């Protein structure tokens, strides 16, 4: 157990350290003090609403990362989370604004609608993949772009948009549909749907490790041929996992819309989808790992404002995020090779045929 824990923690820790060193070098090269920058970012957490913002963003990133992780479990790269959450949020806001229902039911309807809309946006790539063999990466990239067009069209004032102040948005959701948060006074409000992310992570963990569906999903990812021989319907698994991934992606916008904005507005946040992919890689598709990855991501995102005070462009945080993703995948590969070599050595010693480990000899 300890070796397993060590090997699964080694890579992300190495990667974060490496990315930090990389950023420190970039900072020194541009004439800033890395320690001072880090200190400013950590100090920022105590300021104003930043701590609460970090908690809220962590939940949103977790949802996006869970959506990505379901695809990763079976080697499907759902790049389309970006578009799926946008469509999910938009459709849910339109439906939610048009309905009048008792409180809890109203939330549930909106959340279900968001999930269905997200799944619907993933349907075309899923169908194209199983019937026409179109790779999901390409089709979902195209669907992402089209989602932006769809959103711009549906929020037009002759469609569903209305003018509120200076901002165009959908009709506001009635109070019965607003999910109350935990009010911390001047520190801000924690979204009520933060718990949705926690529940989603727990369900994801149980389904992946304790159910037949999770087993079939992971088996299809690890070895499609073995899974097919074991009676797993590959096409069905592709469609189901893409749709489930899309459904969870549809939920990504919910904490903000039901907890703060109460409508889909023109400045609805973008970029959660790609962040989710990075976090899922960082957390190695494990719910706890994803939670920590999301926390790190949210910290970088929300505390970067402090960098301006010490004269560092805040975009260094974006570089840090990109560097983390790239170094974490490289670190996983290195750790995997090291483990493979160690395994081969152990087997060699145990059987007495000291085979020269192939992975270690050549790199």
């Amino acid at each position, binding site marked *: 157990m300890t070796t397993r824990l060590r090997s699964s923690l080694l890579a992300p820790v190495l990667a974060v350290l490496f990315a930090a060193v990389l950023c420190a070098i970039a900072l020194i090269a541009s004439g800033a003090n890395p320690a001072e920058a880090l200190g400013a970012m950590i100090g920022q957490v105590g300021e104003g609403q930043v701590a609460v913002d970090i908690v809220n963003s962590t939940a949103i990133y977790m949802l996006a990362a869970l959506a990505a992780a379901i695809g990763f479990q079976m080697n499907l790269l759902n790049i389309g989370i970006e578009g799926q959450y946008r469509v999910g949020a938009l459709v849910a806001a339109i439906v939610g604004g048009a309905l009048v229902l008792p409180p809890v039911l109203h939330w549930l309807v909106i959340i279900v609608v968001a999930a269905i809309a997200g799944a619907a946006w993933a349907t075309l790539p899923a169908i194209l993949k199983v019937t026409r063999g179109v790779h999901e990466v390409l089709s979902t990239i*195209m669907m992402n772009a089209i989602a932006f067009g769809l959103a711009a069209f549906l929020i037009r004032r002759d469609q569903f948009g209305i003018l509120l102040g200076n901002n165009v948005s959908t009709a506001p959701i009635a109070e019965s549909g607003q999910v109350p948060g935990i009010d911390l006074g001047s520190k801000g409000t924690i979204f009520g749907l933060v718990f949705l992310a926690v529940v989603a992570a727990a369900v994801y963990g149980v389904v992946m490790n304790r159910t037949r569906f999770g087993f079939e999903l992971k088996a299809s990812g690890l070895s499609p041929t073995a899974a097919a021989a074991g009676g797993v319907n590959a096409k069905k698994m592709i469609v189901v996992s893409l749709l489930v991934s899309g459904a969870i992606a549809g939920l990504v916008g919910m904490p903000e819309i039901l907890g703060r904005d109460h409508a889909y507005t023109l400045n609805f946040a973008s970029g959660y989808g790609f962040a989710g992919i990075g976090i899922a890689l960082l957390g190695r598709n494990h719910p706890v790992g994803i939670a920590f990855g999301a926390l790190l991501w949210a910290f970088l995102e929300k505390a970067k404002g402090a960098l301006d005070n010490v004269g560092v462009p805040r975009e260094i945080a974006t570089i840090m995020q990109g560097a983390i993703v790239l170094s974490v995948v490289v670190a996983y590969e290195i750790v995997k090779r090291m483990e493979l070599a160690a395994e081969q050595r152990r087997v060699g010693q145990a059987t007495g045929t000291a085979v020269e480990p192939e992975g270690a000899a050549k790199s």
Partner: protein
Amino acid sequence: MSMVEVQPSTPAGMTMTPPPRKRVLPGWAIFALGIVAVVGVLATTSYLTGEPALTSSSTMQNTVTLGLPILLCGLGGIWAERSGMINIGLEGMMILGTWGAAWAGVLGLGPWGSVLFGAIFGALGGALHAIATVSFGVNHIVSGVAINLLGAGVAKYLSTLIFAPLSDNPRDSPPIERFDTFSAPGLADWLGELEREQRAVVSDVAGLLRGLVTRVSPMLIIAILLVFATYWVLWHTRFGLRLRSCGENPIAAESLGVNVYWHKYVAVIASGALAGIGGAALVLGSSPSIYSEGQTANRGFIGLAAMIFGNWRPGGTLAGAGLFGYADGLRLSSGPETVHSLLYAAVIVAGLLVIWQLFRRKWTTALLAAVGAVAVYVLYFATDELPSEFLPYTPHIITLVVLALAAQRLRPPAADGVPYRRGEGD
């Protein structure tokens, strides 16, 4: 894993490679016929719908300006994927290229310096992708996504650091020096007269040609040369044969003594450099010619789509980039009504497809095409203009349609995206 897979249900070991189809015509003839067909369809549509902007010279000029970055990215895609490396990081490399090009301009190196710096910065992104994927065996798409994040971040950071003091705006660079353009003197005027006469077909052809010969930027010449260079290097040199063999069957290539890692490195770095030149073309082609944040607007992905549209070949990629550039350029030079008339062109294309499929006795396909033609025709009649919000996404929709219709006729390199490690073949 390739970008367009064979049916997932077919076990990989059992698929027999079909013998290559005998080409009745040489490639250049097919290309020329294609151009004639496209011009014919556009001229007919322009005549029947009364939309001269479809074939005006300004549309053609916008097509060239907007198509060049896509074309260069597509060429970058060919280099990487022909060596078996999926490069979804083209977008990030292109962003790096736009920043590099603007920086060269700010340093006062002139437009040629911009192209060079664009290439260098793009190549740096490519080198990073190569280290991650070739040396460390990281999943190509994952690495590409990371490079897109990283490229955007680095460009933003550097632009805040270096451009913000000069332009008072962290998102933009100051305007840089562009290429001097030149026109073919007598020819352009004569074509202009023809275009103004508004005679069917003649004026259309004149308009399109005039767009090609007036205010030509050296960038266009560079891009066309790079198309030919890519074709010549990859298909007519020993190096190119080896590079492509790494994309088809790296283990076989290795057994013949080809240094697969080296070829993959060269290919991915060249791919980044081409995407970077694409970024430079974007900066130099925009007016005023500045770097601005979010300028690439997913053109890297569209370049990849153009490459797939072109079946992983330079000529086809040129056609794809032309198509996507046209869809984009038309939007700039005219209004929603003109783009609406493109629906009419789609009906004509679908109609031609019906005739072709009937000729080949493919009854179901013909029926499907006929249903599609009628549906688009109804849409054309029921609406006056397309919602302008969707116009920027015309290339994306075309890509989806092309992928849905032709995915099984496209042939990506056999080992595209397959991880390779030396000495691990069986």
